[in-house]
């Protein structure tokens, strides 16, 4: 092995295919989807029928995933390549439109906890669903009105009652929460136990007492559903407790919630890079074709400098994400690098999108020019999956000799 930044022919192929798809199919849908707060269903059905989409690739073949999905490819040493493939795919799709990507049928963020904690039977049952025709979604329910960044502070409760668990509480800001076939819900047997009290359940749509509350109206990502979920004496069968009771000897539930982030944070970073690249390229092409005071805007040194910096930051953010993904594929612990990738990419992408609006001037505020949408969409990348501040707590805890008490 040696240092290398070239894509394999296969990765290039995937990238080219997804880029073409993003350009000719996804991007043209983008503005309408944003306006109407939804993606056309026939389009999503077509997506669902496509083989080898990224999310399907995340499901191991033995549990009914797309066996030959791109994510399953391993290198000559038997090491996974799936995280690096995911980086490439996420960037291209987000370049097209990030809300479309978040509407991609599949287990979504619910996938990793099922994969990490689920028994073989559970994996088969919950992943098997996605092989059936139609639109199927999984979701991840951790955040509550009173606990977002502070995961250990969740108050949703669970208590055992015969062969069922009774869940009570409220979850908020759950992506695809309303339309999901199942949601991984984190709850606690006793808040005083802190992290050791956490349990993860797969709660299926239609379970009595499992209610979809209000759908949020947001600054950006408007075509992506963000739901409030209410659990009122919701009876969940014991076989839906991820990993079974014997799995929870210590902080396994909390660790399962956290482990999701090792692969999801670089992925979120890659999405931010995709949006940033879209905004950068849009501004770059704009200054080539538009004139100010008799010369192309590109000819102004200050504008050229801004674009040069944006191109550079875009590359740097991508490399931070690739680094974290490479570590995940190699099996090297990457919690710090995953947080750095996400924190860095979000910050860089914010600046790039802001610059793009600035460079377009008044045009940057027009709905049909796209950049105003990216400017709204990008903000949440420094908020969800751990805010920029939380990422810096994660990073500083790992660079300091002793854990700080902030």
């Amino acid at each position: 092995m040696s240092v290398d930044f070239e894509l394999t022919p296969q990765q290039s192929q995937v990238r080219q295919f997804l880029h073409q798809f993003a350009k000719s199919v996804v991007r043209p849908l983008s503005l309408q989807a944003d306006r109407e707060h939804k993606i056309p269903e026939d389009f999503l059905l077509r997506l669902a029928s496509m083989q080898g989409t990224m999310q399907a690739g995340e499901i191991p073949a033995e549990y009914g995933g797309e066996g030959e999905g791109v994510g399953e490819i391993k290198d000559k040493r038997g090491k996974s390549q799936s995280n690096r493939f995911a980086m490439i795919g996420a960037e291209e799709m987000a370049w097209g439109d990030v809300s479309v990507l978040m509407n991609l049928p599949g287990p979504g963020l619910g996938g990793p906890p099922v994969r990490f904690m689920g028994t073989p039977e559970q994996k088969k049952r919950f992943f098997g669903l996605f092989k059936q025709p139609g639109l199927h979604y999984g979701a991840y329910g951790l955040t509550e009105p009173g606990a977002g960044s502070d995961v250990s502070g969740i108050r949703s409760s669970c208590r055992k009652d015969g062969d069922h668990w009774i869940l009570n509480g409220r979850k908020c800001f759950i992506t695809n929460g309303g339309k999901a076939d199942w949601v991984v819900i984190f709850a606690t047997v006793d808040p005083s136990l802190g992290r050791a009290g956490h349990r993860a359940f797969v709660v299926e749509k239609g379970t009595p007492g499992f209610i979809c509350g209000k759908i949020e109206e947001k600054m950006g990502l408007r075509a992506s559903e963000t739901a409030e979920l209410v659990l009122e004496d919701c009876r969940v069968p014991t076989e839906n407790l991820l990993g079974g009771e014997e799995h929870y000897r210590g902080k396994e539930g909390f660790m399962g919630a956290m482990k999701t982030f090792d692969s999801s944070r670089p992925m979120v970073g890659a999405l931010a890079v995709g949006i940033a690249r879209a905004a950068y390229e849009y501004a770059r092409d704009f200054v080539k074709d538009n004139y100010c005071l008799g010369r192309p805007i590109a000819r102004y040194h200050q504008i050229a400098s801004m674009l040069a910096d944006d191109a550079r930051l875009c590359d740097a953010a991508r490399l931070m994400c690739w680094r974290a993904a490479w570590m995940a594929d190699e099996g090297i612990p990457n919690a710090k690098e995953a947080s750095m990738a996400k924190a860095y990419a979000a910050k860089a992408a914010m600046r790039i999108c802001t610059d793009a609006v600035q460079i377009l001037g008044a045009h940057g505020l027009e709905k049909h020019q796209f950049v105003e949408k990216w400017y709204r969409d990008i903000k949440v990348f420094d908020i969800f999956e751990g805010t920029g501040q939380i990422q810096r707590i994660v990073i500083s805890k790992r660079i300091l000799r002793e854990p700080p008490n902030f």
Partner: protein
Amino acid sequence: MISFALTEDQKILQETVRKFAAEEIRPRMREFEKARAVPDALRKKLHELGLGLLDVPEAWGGQGLGALTAMLVHEELAFGDPGAAVALWAPHAAAAAILELGDDEQRKRLLARFGQAADRLGAVAYSEKWKVPEAGFATVAQTTGAGEAYLLTGAKSFVVNGGRADLTVVFAQVDPGAGWAGVGAFVIEQGAEGMRAGARHDLVGLETVHAAELVLESCRVPGRNRLRGGDDFLAAARRFFQRAALINAARQVGLARASYEFALQYTQDRQAFGKPVAHFQSIAFTLADMHMDVESSRWMLWKAAAEFDAASPSAPQSVAKAALHANEAAWRVADSGVQLLGGAGFIQDFPAEKWMRDTKALALLAPSDQMQQLVVAGAELGRAADFGPGVPTSDIQPIFT
């Protein structure tokens, strides 16, 4: 295949230079600074490791290890001390200039001098303080006889090792008025009649580095020492500057890492209000940002060096991006490094203040940021942004070479 894995050989080399920097350079950085020089013996010792022609192909007496491997070495040396990293690197930019601008005979003959006696100094005389207001150089090279020799006349500034180098590469105007099309590069050997050192520059940082003016008064250079840059002098000059920019970016990464690691230790040792100051969020988050700056600039650098080694068409742009990124990140890290130490950051008992001065000096030891932005913009925007020849010129800012 995307990979950040160094080879075993690269790791061994990195470890060797890291040890050298920790033992031989860091403890003596203030001593070198006061003396405004590194000891000759130490330069000799470093070059006994055989690093001088590390990235020069084996055919010309080098080790053929490529730019990426060289980045590891320069990061470690600068981690020891940025000034010493420049001053200890005997061939300086001259080897890169000869490699890129020379023909095979010149490469073999001239690079061998650095191979034989590894502590021989090289210099490149490029920028001019008082330049005529047109593209190219005020220093002229006048043909004598039927081109068997040139007479060089002019004054160069900001020349590292100026006036005391074994080989000095001088950029001069062969055809005045022809702009960049009329520029040539000439290798002058030490002791040549008509070449003398001018005043040594006093610098904001990197005091260890000997940078001086160079005066040429009808200095005779044999025709065989004119570097013609193959078929395309401009393209070769650009590649030379890419090499210089890569090495310099590696030094900025080493400097930033040094400043970050020092602040990381210091803020954990220093107690305030009953706990280490690093355990206050605003300090800890600053450390996290410094760490991200160090890492992102290293990966930008590695990618650019890998592309340069592969002669990829995107290499010029990636090198410019890496250089910009490293300059900006190192400045921010070095500034934070002083800030986090508080008063201790401002006094010379601690190294942080030195890194803050050194990083600004390093940023001018290769094409300036403004120039690199034009390289990136030129590549990204094409003809819509035609700002000029894309070669660093003193028209924009003089640079140290």
